[in-house]
């Protein structure tokens, strides 16, 4: 009975969104204060009703209400409670409900935190949010309704896709969506600016934190996704350039560019039209990502249930939203162009180059992702573009971006004093070469040029960020450490942590790519294998029965210099309902290296195919991501103003 309210609340939310959108057209008839009050209420209630509807669906899962088709298809009596809850967004219908719930949450947050903006402008932003929200709610009600009934009611459900029964996947989708959908904030900002043909610098300052927040959530979501792939797919890989991965990575690149152009717009009042365009681009890529994931237009390892009809709806929506905003941009953006010029030696120029390369990278990845579509449309035969294309083009395009990080940190707005810049950078440059040389020779005794180059760039970035923080702290001459920290503008920490994170990430990616060793062998019980400095013994196989799966657990002991180190328990699970075989790799992680063991097929009664990987520094990938996220937190919660000496 209670689930009927799910549908009802969805319809109420749709009407509320419609009303907020209608306020866009009532400017002449209703005074601004009234419209503002109504708009805030509508937005808050929209969020509440969607939240209720979401809770009702979760309730359906937790109480095993298999009369709901969506619950019956994605849950099971024996499913762990935590996965019953995460199953709410485990398939298409619930994901889209989560999408629109997150959208309404962002809208409500805008309403709460926009005192510094003119009321008229806020009403416009919320109205555009309303338009986005209507489309998605209608989409849910008519093509993807999670409250659809099924009759006769099945006694048990068909279980959640076993791939999704993993701790990492409980929070991965909501966090990713927070970032994904968060790109709607700069989008509605940009469209409102275009509608009003007016922008003030302090509005841009307001936008910055929202962009950082969305960037941060995207970073969290993407890194959790790669973490999950590393643990769950059993191939030791963590990034596959799959269309679905690219779908989240393209908005990330675009919003990273936006983050930097926004700083320039805020500081110098230039690039405003470019910032507006990037805001539109970022959200368009989020929508495109949603379309690619949901339409089944591209072949992906993420086997989501796809449906061309749903794809068509999203594509029409995308055409409408992006088309109108780009038309508005075409018509109005010349009015926003600034007359100010900038010099080649300035920080803004370096950031312009950064933006240029980030945008090119985004389009290169877009091209690679859509390439099978393009060739098939033009009858060139279907050709897929694989990891080699993406790896090559991405690393080449990243080179200048990473190289320019240090100069960007040490340059000044408007005009950089070359002698000062040289003094700072020259020693950093030298030390980075030295450190990467020592690092490479002592650790790996290796001379692959590409690795040298990557190490140099990583250390150059890390060192320059650390030294900059030290310089700023020293310049303050405060007596206590606490005072120094509290006086230092948090933007410095935001900037440094994120850039150090990039450096750490580069070290992790490069070393683990070039120096991993792997063995795929048949091991008899009791046999041993040596991998680098570690000896691994295959002790045997144990059988385990769990709630909704049974599994064979391999027991492996690892030794170093004949001292016992750690045991590994990789599993092969067979899920009872869907009969899927899942590999659960066993991983021993440390800063310096991961040992990764996955159990393959049984070869004979006492021997198994075993995959063992030794992956040096691979954890740095996620440490780097964590540092970037930390930087994001500083950016959101820290004090606003940059001090004069930066």
């Amino acid at each position: 009975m209670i689930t009927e309210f799910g549908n009802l609340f969805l319809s109420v939310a749709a009407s509320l969104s419609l009303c907020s959108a209608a306020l866009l057209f009532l400017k002449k008839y209703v005074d601004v204060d009234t419209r503002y009050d109504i708009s805030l209420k509508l937005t808050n209630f929209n969020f509440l009703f969607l939240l209720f509807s979401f809770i009702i669906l979760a309730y359906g899962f937790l109480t095993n209400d298999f009369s709901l088709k969506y619950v019956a298809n994605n849950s099971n009596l024996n499913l762990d409670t935590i996965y019953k809850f995460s199953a709410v967004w485990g398939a298409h219908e619930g994901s889209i409900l989560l999408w629109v719930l997150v959208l309404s949450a962002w809208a409500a947050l805008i309403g709460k935190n926009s005192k510094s903006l003119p009321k008229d402008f806020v009403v416009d932003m919320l109205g555009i949010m309303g338009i986005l929200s209507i489309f998605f709610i209608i989409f849910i009600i008519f093509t993807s309704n999670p409250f659809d009934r099924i009759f006769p009611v099945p006694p048990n459900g068909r279980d959640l896709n076993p791939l999704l029964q993993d701790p990492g996947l409980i929070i991965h989708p909501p966090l990713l969506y927070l970032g994904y959908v968060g790109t709607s904030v700069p989008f509605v900002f940009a469209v409102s600016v275009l509608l009003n043909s007016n922008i003030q610098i302090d509005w841009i300052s307001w936008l910055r934190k929202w962009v950082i927040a969305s960037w941060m959530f995207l970073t969290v979501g993407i890194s959790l996704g790669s973490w999950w792939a590393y643990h769950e797919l059993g191939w030791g890989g963590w990034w596959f350039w799959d269309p679905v991965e690219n779908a989240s990575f393209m908005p990330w690149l675009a919003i990273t560019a936006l983050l930097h152009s926004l700083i320039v717009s805020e500081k110098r009042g230039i690039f405003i039209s470019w910032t507006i365009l990037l805001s539109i681009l970022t959200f368009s890529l989020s929508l495109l990502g949603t379309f690619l994931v949901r339409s089944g237009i591209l072949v992906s390892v993420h086997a989501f249930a796809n449906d061309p009809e749903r794809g068509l709806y999203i594509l029409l929506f995308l055409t409408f939203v992006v088309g109108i905003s780009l038309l508005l941009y075409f018509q109005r953006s010349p009015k926003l162009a600034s007359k100010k010029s900038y010099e080649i030696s300035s920080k803004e120029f370096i950031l312009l180059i950064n933006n240029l390369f980030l945008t090119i990278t985004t389009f290169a990845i877009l091209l690679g992702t859509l390439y099978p579509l393009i060739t098939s449309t033009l009858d060139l035969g279907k050709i897929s573009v694989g990891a080699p294309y993406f790896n090559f083009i991405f690393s080449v395009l990243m080179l200048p971006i990473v190289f320019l990080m240090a100069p960007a940190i040490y340059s000044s707005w408007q005009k950089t004093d070359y002698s000062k810049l040289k003094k700072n950078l020259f020693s950093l440059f030298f030390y980075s070469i030295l450190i990467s040389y020592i690092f490479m020779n002592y650790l790996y005794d290796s001379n692959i040029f590409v690795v040298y180059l990557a190490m140099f760039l990583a250390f150059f970035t890390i060192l320059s960020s650390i030294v900059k923080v030290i310089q700023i702290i020293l310049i303050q001459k405060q007596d206590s450490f606490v005072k120094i920290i509290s006086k230092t503008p948090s933007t410095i920490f935001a900037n440094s942590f994120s850039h150090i994170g990039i450096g750490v990430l580069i070290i992790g990616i490069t070393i683990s790519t070039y120096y991993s060793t792997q063995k795929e062998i048949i091991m008899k019980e009791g046999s041993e294998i040596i991998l680098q400095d570690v000896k691994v013994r295959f002790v045997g196989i144990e059988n385990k029965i769990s709630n909704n799966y049974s599994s064979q657990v391999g027991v492996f002991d690892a030794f170093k210099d004949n001292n016992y180190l750690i045991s590994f328990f990789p599993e092969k699970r067979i899920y009872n309902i869907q009969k899927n075989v899942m590999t659960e790799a066993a991983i021993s992680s440390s800063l310096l290296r991961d040992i990764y063991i996955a159990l393959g097929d049984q070869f004979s009664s006492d021997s198994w195919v075993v995959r063992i990987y030794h992956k040096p520094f691979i954890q740095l990938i996620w440490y780097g991501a964590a540092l970037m996220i930390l930087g994001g937190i500083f950016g959101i919660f820290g004090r606003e103003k940059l001090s004069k000496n930066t």
Partner: protein
Amino acid sequence: MKFKTSIIPITIFLVILYFLFSGLNKDPTIIPSPLIGKRIPSFESKTLIDNEIISNNDLIGNYILINVWGSWCYACTIEHENLIDIYKNEEITIYGLNYKDNREAALSWLKKRGNPYKKNIIDKDGSIGIDFGVYGAPETFLINKEGIIIYKHIGPIDRNFFKEVVLPYISK
């Protein structure tokens, strides 16, 4: 009228839209191979089980299926029983192209799931796959008596694959 740079974004957008809309009506799993109607590419490799030399010439003379698979490929395990079915019930020879695989893993995989293949061509580095225009495992090619590729299927074959797809070609 003066050229406006702000026209560029919308132009790019329209081009992308064109491809997205045209892609919507196509099933991405049906992939026309440029090799259809052409002879199978020449290659020389070893067979998986007996380690004998095998080349493209060994595949000519009868209608055959070439199935691209790997022990690492999850979808291959799904279609495998359908291949076994064809092997048991139909008069057609199936060759395997063991794609980017490890020999021992492949052997144990076959041992566990049954072997429907007359012979398996080892393609450890995927280079034969490239010549065949392999998009990803599993894929299945139908070759006629003259050694010409007449059909290609991407993804796991289903239960009716032989009756609905292969038979009409063979009985022509």
